């Protein structure tokens, strides 16, 4: 456990060495709040439904890949992976340390959007349930996407390549949970769309949670997929041939 903490500390601090992290956090908050504000002023509803509706897409396409891209790609590019993996620390602990560091950074950025519910509570009396559910879902969703990102980052030396591939992968995962996409897929191969929608698609589970329906299955879905990708990353490192 101590080893995880050592890696965590370095990785977490590493986010603040370069300006990229700050830039992306600001973009993330402005983008999400901005798109939401449009809706908010147009309809004048004191709820965050629209905010959580677009969150999976902005997370998948921009923000999560930007956080996770450096986790392994940077190590590979600098060659520091050679020293990191010859430290007397298990691969599992290194992966967990890196994952939790990126997760912590994500939580900080996400907490930046807490301004919105605060404003809502000042202006009106929004329903607290969906907002808490929404944030809870966002935490789980972030963990899942980050685990995909760290896994993909392990394959590439170039951070930009990691970013694009992660963005594609997470985008796809988000899309197959979007109601219309599985319908189209069902039109091609009957049953596949439905299968993807129920078992793979992220958005569906996220929507369930953010509606305030905290279904154990959805929680299990997020946690088990996060665990799966982290395990894959560990296995990849242990069986490395580079």
């Amino acid at each position: 456990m101590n080893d995880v903490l050592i890696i965590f500390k370095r990785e977490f601090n590493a986010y603040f060495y370069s300006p990229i992290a700050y830039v992306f956090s600001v973009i993330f908050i402005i983008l999400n709040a901005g798109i939401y504000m449009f809706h908010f002023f147009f309809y004048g509803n004191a709820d965050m439904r629209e905010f959580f509706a677009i969150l999976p897409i902005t997370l998948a396409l921009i923000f999560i890949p930007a956080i996770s891209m450096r986790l392994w790609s940077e190590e590979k590019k600098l060659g520091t992976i050679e020293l990191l993996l010859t430290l007397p620390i298990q691969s599992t602990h290194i992966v967990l340390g890196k994952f939790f560091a990126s997760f912590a950074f994500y939580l900080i950025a996400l907490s930046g959007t807490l301004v919105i519910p605060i404003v809502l509570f000042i202006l009106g009396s929004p329903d607290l349930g969906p907002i808490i559910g929404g944030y809870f879902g966002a935490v789980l969703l972030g963990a899942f996407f980050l685990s995909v990102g760290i896994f993909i980052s392990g394959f590439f030396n170039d951070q930009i390549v990691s970013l694009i591939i992660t963005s594609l992968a997470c985008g796809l995962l988000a899309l197959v949970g979007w109601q219309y996409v599985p319908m189209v897929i069902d039109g091609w191969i009957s049953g596949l769309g439905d299968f993807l929608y129920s078992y793979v698609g992220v958005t569906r589970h996220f929507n369930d949670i953010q509606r305030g329906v905290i279904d154990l299955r959805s929680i299990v879905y997020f946690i088990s997929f996060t665990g799966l990708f982290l395990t894959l990353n560990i296995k990849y490192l242990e069986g490395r041939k580079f």
Partner: protein
Amino acid sequence: MIELKEVCKNYGLTKALIDVSFKVEKGEIIGFVGPNGAGKSTAMRIITTYTAPTSGTIKVGQYDVLENPLEVRQMIGYLPETVPLYYDMVVYDYLEFMGSARHLNGRLRSRMDWVTEACQIETVLHRPIGVLSKGFKQRVCLAQALLHDPDVLILDEPTSGLDPLQIIGIRNLVKELAHEKTIMVSTHILQEVSSIADRIIVINDGRIVADGSFHELQSQIEHENIFYLAVKAEHEKVESKVKSLSGIENVEVLTSDESDLTQLRIHYVDDNLPESLDKLIKKEKWTLVEYRKEKLSLEDTFLKLTKATKEKATERVVDKETEAD
């Protein structure tokens, strides 16, 4: 301390290491020599557990590299060839991180003080690694390798990119450490090897070509004896007279036509040649200018060893067997 047995490593179809076996005893300094791409770094990466071998067994101390990688890693200090460092980190933070990752705990501060002094990096301790010069980066990376006072040091080209003064500094440091540690230094700078290493292992095309002290290696390839002779006399006459002596294999004439000095390199097999040559010179009344037995230089030794790899493919098997005895 380090033992490799029939280690092979393939990268796809490329064979990086073929049947590499050697043993390094405790307290030895091994010079690991070979041209670029010979497999030095691959062998070192396998010993440090970074890469897994395709086949063969490697032991560091009593631990097997594949079965107890964590114990092996704790024993080894490693300076990779590429000098990998986190450029955004401050030197002090970096050393602190590497130290705690190696579980130094209470010893961390004293060890950090020791390496900062030994590697002479006090002046840059609070600067980001990215802005340091190549020499300092190299020394920070070396400091990292020494931090946990490891029993085994694996240094992959530790002096590349350093100025002569820094090279001497690192060499002296390595020599100092040698009393208590097992050290493996890879390099292609030959003076370095002969100045610090007790034993030299020459590797070429993934195979061990030679293994022994510098003098052993020299004698291993000095099949023929060579004399250098310079006398004042006519070229043709000297050449023909010398050639007529018994036991001469070949005579190379080194002189240009204008000078009256005749310089020869005489390759011979007969041990009595010095006497007969001496007699010849006295008889002909040549003026002797220079007369010496030629020794192979470091570079020649190295070249001959690496060149001969392929030709000696069959011979080596025999060599190995006799070595084992």
